[in-house]
């Protein structure tokens, strides 16, 4: 019986395994499941639909929720109630009870399972001890063992197909095909042998397959490495490309970088240079104007209607860089700008012309030429120079080496080609000592090249030192130079200036701060004696500023202090000697140079020029001709430059002011004539510079009365020419009428838009308005109220539940008691009956 049972059980398992047919309806929901019973649902009717209100209570299932609540209570309150007044306690004695989720490893779980089993065995009755078919389902990691087995392809005996095959059945079951009927015994034996043979075959086959599989599995690991390698190589190896692919590859990987400089055509180079200059010029112009200063003054606003909403648009035609993608017939790319490149440059040129100087263009040509010539005779060093500079500062001009083709010093072999940076200033001066001007410049240039910051990091400090040395050297050259040295010194300075320009570009910040410090120091020395002209080196520093920096800026950390310095000198320092006069004129010249582009003016310049003219006018001894200080209005100093009429003065040749004028103290006749000639030229230049400004007449007018008093007859002819030109320029400016000042026309204010504006009004009339805090508080109070209500309700229900439990218990115990009483009565009645019967029997016996 047991064996059969086992067999049946195994069959069930087997059948389960076999019928692994997927039931298409398995996933479908059963009809009865989770379907809402309409009688369970209670719908709360709403009177109105209110937009935006989320309603949670429109429908509910009172039965379900009540049942849930009941269940919850029975699990919590009910449990508590059960153990009420009971001292028993549940103690977890399982293995590994202190361990938490992660720590419960397989071994622990197994041990626990084993202990559980053992305890079961111990406690169970004898019959169950030997029951192998308990329905307990074993699981491993949440899966039943059955499920796991499905995927394990282990060979097992169960796999044997014990059924007869079709051939056999066909032959035996239905009488066969009319072969000689064998006797039954033979047939059965036949069948049995056949069956056995077949079984053997299958078993053999399976063994073979299994062996093969095993071998394959064993070899697989060795194969894996092979697979990996081949695949990698295959990755590398690509099928040969066809021409199209190749063309595409070529196009994608084609180098798109710029061609090296040498390959650029000269005209392209010129174009680039022009573009670069234009960009720099634009930047300069931006810096030149004070914020919000320009445009309003010289550009009259066009008519604007009151309806103009200022939504101005760009005019399409003006857009120069309209680059449409287009191809010409040969398939070459020709964008718009490429197409009319010529006209583009023309346009740009025109712009330059419009901005009132065509020097730009000439200079572009110049740079052209120089760059062309550069290509050939640039030494390697120089190239690296310019390259590095370009990397250091993007704004640095690319090529701007001075090509002094007639530079004899570079061939001079007496100077070593590499010169170390001198440690101290003394060493530096020793290097330069006793050398000719050109040699000195060459030495400095070579020091600079050998200590280029690009070559070594230390050189960063070295070039700054070199710059400081140069400043100091200039200071010594000019502080008190003698008459014969001065022009040589100026020549040296002229050679040094380009070098200093390059140096400054190496590290603008540090170098400029050095120069600024020098100027600060000079100013502090000057401000101790503001009535005295500073030494010549100060003026030379001013000239350096003018050469190196963009002096046209509205505010420049170096140019502006210099301007202030110059204004102070010109308006305070007494003019008494030839040196003072020439220094003043040099200052005036430098100041004008500063303002060349920005057209800004320094009033002291005009006052100074007036003063010089004033000095040239011969006056009566007691005559007082009013003039702005620091010039004297009378006395000997007021006619320092006046000359008498003589043939000698008439014969003086025209020549510009000399370097020696800056160091000589005595006044000579030719100097007087020279000064006046230069002054007249300067007046003309200065007037033309500021001529376009409103109110320039105030600067020009005072000159006219002074100039009319000049004794024309005592000067040579060219001075008279200058005078006339100057007068013409002045008169033009002085007589120009001006428009009274009026505020610039203001932009009409746009009308206010008349679109309706919606405002969300959130205040409810039924409730008084409250502040935010109050409102929040009210909300909270409301919440508390609601929660309290809910809690009370819960408590009440809990009580009801407990009450029910208690009543149930009471009833139960009552019933028990009744039963007991009944039984007792019953027993008593039986007893009584027996007693009665006994008594009756006794009675009968007695009878």
């Amino acid at each position, binding site marked *: 019986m047991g064996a059969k049972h086992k067999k049946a059980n195994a069959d069930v398992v087997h059948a389960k395994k076999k019928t692994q047919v997927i039931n298409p309806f398995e996933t479908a929901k059963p009809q009865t499941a989770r379907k809402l019973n309409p009688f369970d649902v209670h719908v709360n009717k709403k009177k109105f639909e209110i937009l935006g209100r989320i309603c949670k209570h429109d429908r509910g299932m009172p039965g379900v929720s009540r049942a849930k609540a009941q269940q919850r209570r029975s699990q919590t309150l009910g449990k508590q109630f059960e153990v009420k007044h009971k001292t028993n306690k549940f103690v977890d004695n399982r293995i590994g009870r202190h361990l938490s989720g992660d720590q419960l490893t397989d071994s622990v779980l197994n041990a626990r399972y084993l202990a559980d089993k053992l305890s079961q065995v111990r406690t169970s009755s004898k019959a169950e001890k030997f029951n192998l078919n308990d329905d307990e389902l074993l699981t491993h990691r949440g899966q039943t063992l059955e499920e796991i087995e499905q995927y394990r392809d282990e060979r097992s005996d169960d796999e044997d197909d014990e059924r007869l095959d079709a051939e056999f059945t066909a032959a035996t079951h239905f009488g066969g095909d009319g072969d000689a009927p064998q006797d039954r015994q033979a047939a059965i034996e036949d069948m049995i042998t056949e069956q056995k043979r077949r079984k053997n075959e299958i078993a053999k086959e399976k063994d073979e397959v299994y062996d093969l599989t095993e071998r394959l599995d064993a070899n697989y690991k060795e194969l894996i490495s092979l697979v990996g390698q081949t695949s990698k190589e295959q990755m590398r190896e690509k099928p040969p490309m066809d021409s199209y692919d190749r063309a595409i590859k070529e196009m994608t990987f084609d180098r798109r970088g710029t061609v090296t400089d040498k390959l650029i055509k000269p005209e392209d180079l010129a174009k680039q240079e022009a573009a670069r200059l234009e960009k720099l010029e634009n930047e300069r112009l931006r810096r030149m104007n004070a914020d919000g200063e320009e445009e309003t003054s010289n550009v009259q606003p066009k008519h604007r209607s009151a309806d103009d909403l200022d939504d101005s648009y760009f005019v399409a035609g003006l857009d120069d860089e309209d680059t449409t993608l287009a191809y010409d017939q040969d398939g070459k790319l020709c964008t718009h700008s490429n197409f009319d490149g010529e006209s583009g440059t023309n346009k740009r040129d025109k712009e330059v012309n419009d901005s009132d100087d065509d020097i730009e263009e000439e200079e572009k040509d110049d740079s052209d030429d120089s760059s062309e010539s550069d290509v050939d005779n640039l030494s390697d060093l120089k190239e690296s120079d310019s390259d590095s500079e370009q990397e250091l500062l993007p704004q640095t001009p690319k090529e701007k080496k001075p090509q002094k083709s007639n530079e004899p010093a570079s061939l001079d072999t007496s100077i070593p080609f590499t010169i170390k940076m001198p440690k101290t200033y003394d060493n530096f001066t020793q290097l330069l000592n006793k050398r000719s001007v050109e040699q000195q410049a060459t030495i400095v240039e070579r020091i600079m090249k050998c200590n280029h910051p690009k070559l070594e990091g230390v050189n960063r400090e070295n070039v700054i030192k070199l710059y400081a040395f140069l400043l100091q050297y200039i200071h010594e050259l000019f502080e008190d130079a003698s008459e014969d040295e001065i022009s040589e010194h100026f020549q040296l300075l002229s050679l040094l200036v380009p070098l200093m320009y390059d140096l400054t570009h190496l590290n603008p910040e540090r170098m400029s701060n050095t120069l600024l410090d020098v100027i600060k120091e000079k100013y502090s020395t000057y401000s101790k004696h503001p009535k005295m002209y500073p030494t010549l080196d100060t003026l030379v520093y001013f000239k350096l500023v003018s050469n190196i920096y963009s002096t046209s800026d509205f505010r420049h950390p170096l140019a502006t202090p210099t301007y202030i310095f110059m204004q102070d000198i010109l308006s305070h320092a007494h003019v008494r000697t030839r040196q003072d006069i020439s220094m003043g004129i040099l200052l005036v010249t430098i100041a004008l140079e500063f303002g060349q582009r920005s057209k800004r003016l320094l009033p002291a310049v005009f006052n100074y020029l007036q003063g010089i003219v004033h000095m040239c006018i011969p006056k009566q001894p007691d005559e007082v001709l009013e003039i702005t200080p620091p010039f004297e209005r009378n006395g000997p100093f007021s006619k320092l430059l006046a000359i008498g009429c003589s043939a000698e003065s008439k014969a003086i040749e025209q020549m510009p002011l000399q370097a020696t004028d800056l160091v000589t103290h005595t006044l000579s006749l030719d100097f007087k004539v020279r000064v006046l000639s230069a002054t007249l030229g300067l007046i003309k230049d200065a007037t033309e510079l500021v001529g376009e400004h409103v109110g320039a007449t105030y*600067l020009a007018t005072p000159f006219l009365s002074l100039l009319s008093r000049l004794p024309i007859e005592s000067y040579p002819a060219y001075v008279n020419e200058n005078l006339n030109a100057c007068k013409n320029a002045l008169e033009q400016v002085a007589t120009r009428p001006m428009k009274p000042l009026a505020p610039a026309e203001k932009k009409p204010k746009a009308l206010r838009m008349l679109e309706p504006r919606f405002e969300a009004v959130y205040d409810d009339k039924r409730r008084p308005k409250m502040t935010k805090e109050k409102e929040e508080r009210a909300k909270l109070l409301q919440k508390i109220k609601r929660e309290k209500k809910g809690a009370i309700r819960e408590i009440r229900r809990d009580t009801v539940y407990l009450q029910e439990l208690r009543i149930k218990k009471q009833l139960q115990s009552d019933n028990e008691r009744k039963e007991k009483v009944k039984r007792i009565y019953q027993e008593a009645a039986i007893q009584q009956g027996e007693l009665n019967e006994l008594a009756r029997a006794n009675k009968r016996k007695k009878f």
Partner: protein
Amino acid sequence: MKRPKLTEQEPDEQKEPAVKRFKVPPELQQKANDFLNAKKLNVKVLNELVELLEKEEGDASGVMHVLEVVFKNLFKRNCMQPELEENGSSPKAATVAKFEELYEKTWVRLLQCLNSGSKEQSGAALRVCMELIAIEARHTKPPLKSWPTRRLESILRTMIESDVTPPVALQHFQQYARCFDVIEESYKLLLTLTPKKFKDTPNAALNYLAIINLLDLGKNMIKTSQRHVEDAQEFDYMSTRKVVNKVWKRVMKAISGIDEKVHRQVLIVLLERIMSHLNDPIMLTDFLMDSLQQFDGPIALLALQGIFTLMQQQNITYPDVYEKLYSMFYPRMFFNKYKARLFYLADIFLTSTHLPENLVAAFVKRLARLALQSPTKDALIMIHFICNLLLRHTGLQRLIRATPAASAVEITDPYDATETDPVKSKAINSSLWEIMLLQKHAIPEIANAARFINSSLPTQEVELGPLLDMKECDIFDAEVKKQVKQFALAYERPNSLALPQNDMVTKYWSIC
């Protein structure tokens, strides 16, 4: 410098550090110590010391200091005054007499030092003198006790007679001139010391005025009430005031025909120190009027300030005051010392909003013109001043806000700069083109200040006070201190001293 009182209290203990400070030769110091520590005071030693002072050619401050300490101690020990009960024939009296003689000698020598020596020496001499005055006043016996006026007189006289103006010792005298007793006594003494004719002795006059200039009777002095001599009497303002009045009367008598420098000094002293203490300042009207009419430049300016004070306090009227003020605005004015005063005065005079507009307009135009000719700082002040005037007199805004019709027509400036009467200068019909021009000034500070006319005017006036206090170099310093340091470089490389474009220097100079 130590305050006088401190040195008086413990001369012996104070000696050591003090001596060191004055570089007293150690042997001299030893000598003095021996002299003071000896039981019997040796006249000879003191005599030697005094002689040393007389002979000293170079820096005598060390010897002076030693003598100061010695005499202080002598005064403390009452060795300098004969006891009244004793008869004069006693040996002690002889010593005392000797001491006194030496003391007088020392004084003579000290007064010499006051004038002749270097700065340090005269300073030390003055200090010693004043210390001695203090100690003398303290230790003189009651019947003779008084302020040692005699000594102070000698000091003042020496200073007045000094050849150097201002006297070297004057700046050291300043700290003693804070004490009210010194002031009181000095004024009393100055009454007698007034030079007879300022014209003849300009140096003495200048020194005299400089001393008065130091004696400030202002509120500060009365509040602090320092005294130089300990038990001096309470300060009596009324009596001092009387003396001051008398002193000034003397001065006024002496000033006929003085030269410009003295005149200026007289005016300054009058304005700064005396004016507020005079009983009858109206008496000054003639003097001030004369100064105003006959001079121009600083004297006229100072006189104008005086007259302004009189107008305020005494209700005098001066008909052409605005014309006079107007005439003071000319280029040369900005190169003398008192320009800040001029701006201050002009600011006050033009405060009233009831002035005729054409008058103020003339001032505005003139200021604008001057801003084109003056140094940086003054131009800045004037631009702000113009801005203030435009704010005060709203009618003047037509100078920068012409009607559209008027602004369409080009005109030449109708303002007549040579006209002396501001009302007739037609400035009101002009326009402030000068400010437009100043916007093109190379110095950004000024260009920015001048831009006030472009947009709406500021709502509040600019405070001129801080601007007036500004020093000439402040603009430069402020500019240098600006934090943003972006050194924009020229993008064209010069090949020589000449610029690649727009070169001016090589055009007019053949220097390279």
